């Protein structure tokens, strides 16, 4: 009995004591709760890419990767618990995939000196690396998304939006409210009317909101939904016979889960994306060989090739490349979080590199600098084909209206810096 207990205790200690030499990429995922539909896809993509690196290349630069996973259920309290329980393991970078948790962690990152990547989410003004040295949001942010959507609408309308009505149906949270300021600035510039229609968490009930859409008859609807909110919105739009090609979602409202339930009625619905979609990339051959067929796929292994799975792959690729950059910069394999941050700040994603990685044209090219942690703000528009059941890119990567977005970022980050007495990081 004693022996048994000793072995057990020993096993527990071995299991609990992390091998410090690994590169630790914690995954604060959410596979449960009202936002699980997107959370599972992202977490699987993220995990599968890191598994591929481990299996094919033996990690990054010969250093193995370890990915402790922690379930947040998109809940900020659990997010805090997850962060605190993983940060001591030598975590190199966090990607919480939740704007609420990101807001929570932004001030802590400066103190704990761990970088965070919030691609296409989080606090938009964290693009200004001068104020937010530890937060990155390349390659695009919410305001870029809003601006690219408006640019696309301009394209559709022949360059004139005077007197047009655009409604923003948004999740009533930090995430959904982020684009309002940009859209207001854009509506002034282009002369369209903006109506904002909030939908409360979790968004299963939207009858009154779509009644309002029906009454106000906007020419376009911009949708900032996440989780169960998006499929409900698409269904309600279909119910009031709103033309689907005039409804454009942000990248978090553009996955298969969001449109499949509405069936044929969702045909033609559009969404922006900051990376390419589909599974027609050479990397999937490697994934199949080293991960799927080896039985090492994360989760149930049924999400391969979906839009947000691709986003998980892309997110993992970005941090893996940043880690590689950091290894070269500091000439050490076992980098720490500070060195990882330097690597992220020196990251350059080129078309050649993406092709090398088996992801040609998977995302825009960009280069991170000290003052620009957010890339160049390129995004493309995708459209849903209900018959073929797939998303396709219908435009090139379009750059957002930097004349509008950049001053807003400067203003918001300057206010944050003043409020919290943050010294300039770049000078």
């Amino acid at each position: 009995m004693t022996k048994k207990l000793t072995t057990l205790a020993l096993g527990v200690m071995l299991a609990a004591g992390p091998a410090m030499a690994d590169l630790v990429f914690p995954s604060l995922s959410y596979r449960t709760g009202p936002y699980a539909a997107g959370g599972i896809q992202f977490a699987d993509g993220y995990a599968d890419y890191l598994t591929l690196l481990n299996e094919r290349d033996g990690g990054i630069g010969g250093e193995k990767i370890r990915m402790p996973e922690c379930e947040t259920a998109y809940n900020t309290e659990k997010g805090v618990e997850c962060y605190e329980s993983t940060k001591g393991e030598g975590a190199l970078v966090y990607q919480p995939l939740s704007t609420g948790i990101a807001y929570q962690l932004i001030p802590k990152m400066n103190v704990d000196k761990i970088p965070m990547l919030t691609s296409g989410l989080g606090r938009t003004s964290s693009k200004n690396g001068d104020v937010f040295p530890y937060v990155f949001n390349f390659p695009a942010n919410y305001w870029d998304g809003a601006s690219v959507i408006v640019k696309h609408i301009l394209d559709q309308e022949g360059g004139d939006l005077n007197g047009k009505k655009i409604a923003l149906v948004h999740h009533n949270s930090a995430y959904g409210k982020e684009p309002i300021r940009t859209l207001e600035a854009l509506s002034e510039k282009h002369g369209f009317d903006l109506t904002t229609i909030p939908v409360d968490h979790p968004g299963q009930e939207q009858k009154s909101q779509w009644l309002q859409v029906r009454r106000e008859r906007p020419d376009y609807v911009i949708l900032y939904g996440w989780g169960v909110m998006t499929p409900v919105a698409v269904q309600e739009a279909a119910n009031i016979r709103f033309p689907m090609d005039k409804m454009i979602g942000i990248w978090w409202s553009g996955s298969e889960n969001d449109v499949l339930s509405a069936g044929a009625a969702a045909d033609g619905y559009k969404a922006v994306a900051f990376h390419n979609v589909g599974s027609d990339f050479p990397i999937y051959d490697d994934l199949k060989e080293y991960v799927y067929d080896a039985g090492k796929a994360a989760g149930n292994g049924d999400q391969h090739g979906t839009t947000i799975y691709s986003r998980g792959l892309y997110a993992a690729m970005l941090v893996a490349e940043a880690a590689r950059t950091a290894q070269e910069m500091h000439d050490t394999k076992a980098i720490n979080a500070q060195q990882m941050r330097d690597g992220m700040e020196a990251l350059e994603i080129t078309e050649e590199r993406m092709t090398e990685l088996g992801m040609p044209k998977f995302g825009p090219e960009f280069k991170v600098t000290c003052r620009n942690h957010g890339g160049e703000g390129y995004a493309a528009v995708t459209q849903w084909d209900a018959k073929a059941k797939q998303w396709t890119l219908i435009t090139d990567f379009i750059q957002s209206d930097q004349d509008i977005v950049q001053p807003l970022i400067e203003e918001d980050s300057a206010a944050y810096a003043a409020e919290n007495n943050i010294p300039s990081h770049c000078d």
Partner: protein
Amino acid sequence: MFYREAGDFKTSYRADSQTFPIRFDRYRYYVVLAIAFLVVPFIINDYWANAILLPFLIYAIAAIGLNILVGYCGQLSLGTGGFMAMGAYACYKFMTAFPDLSMFINVILAGVVTAIVGMLFGLPSLRIKGFYLAVATLAAQFFLVWLFNRVPWFYNYSASGQINAPQRTMFGVEITGPLAPAWATYLFCLVFLTLSALIARNLTRGSVGRKWMAIRDMDIAAEIIGVNPLRAKLSAFAVSSFFVGISGALFFALYLGAVEVGEAFNIQKSFLILFMVIIGGLGSVFGSFAGAAFMVLLPVALKVVGVDLLGWPTDTVAHFQLVIVGALIIIFLIAEPHGLAQLWRLAKEKLRLWPFPY
């Protein structure tokens, strides 16, 4: 052997009516306080503070508040989340409007504001009771959350609608913001919890508490023997909301640091605290502590066992957590409807007879 009055002679009424009349119990209480104040701050780390102790301390204050209303005064309330939000936003407004005001005063003021709001929403309790009152307080929950989402003045017109706690110090030590050391935030919350528990315990032992309990047990009879239902019910709402407001302020300023009202203070928060009170034990200050500890510790414990020790997938553990917590709640309510506090009481009775039970 334990918990015996034998040999413990009281020579004054004062000594006889103290909170812990049994010597062993009293010393245990002093030891717990000493450990909490003098030992824990020296060994605490970020994980223990932010993942376990802060939520426990803060939820315990909220549970004490709700217990006064539901457990002592018998007024069922589902508005706790809304009142916590009121405390959080009041604290935020005081913090930003008067940057030099001490954080201690901010939190107290947040409690006072919440008490006033709580009294307003308590007015319907004079006419309706039971489930109907629960629905009326549910209105408070939805109205307050809607208000803080809708009116930009409450979140100082920030782009995201979030409120962020600015950095504040006390005696030269940061207690809010990212630089705050774990021991400082812990001690700050612990002081509030200790004071809240002392006040609550003494209120409920005194004439005010007796009036509340009279109203709870039979309001018509209470009225006939001279208890003013208006004053009793509204004072219960005020005191309860005061504590809940304090917990909301601490929840926002010290624990989370950034809050989004729809996410942090939604209806689930009201239910969570109601569960704490029911599982802990209605009408018991100790029950509030036990319930808060149960609801905070159980998920963390299950996670540690499931994910870290057994290596199960995180989603399986998360689902199991729901099943286990749900099952435990049902089992508790069937096996011990008076909650953990009753188990504690029974354990004490058994200990008094030990080793010769009959």
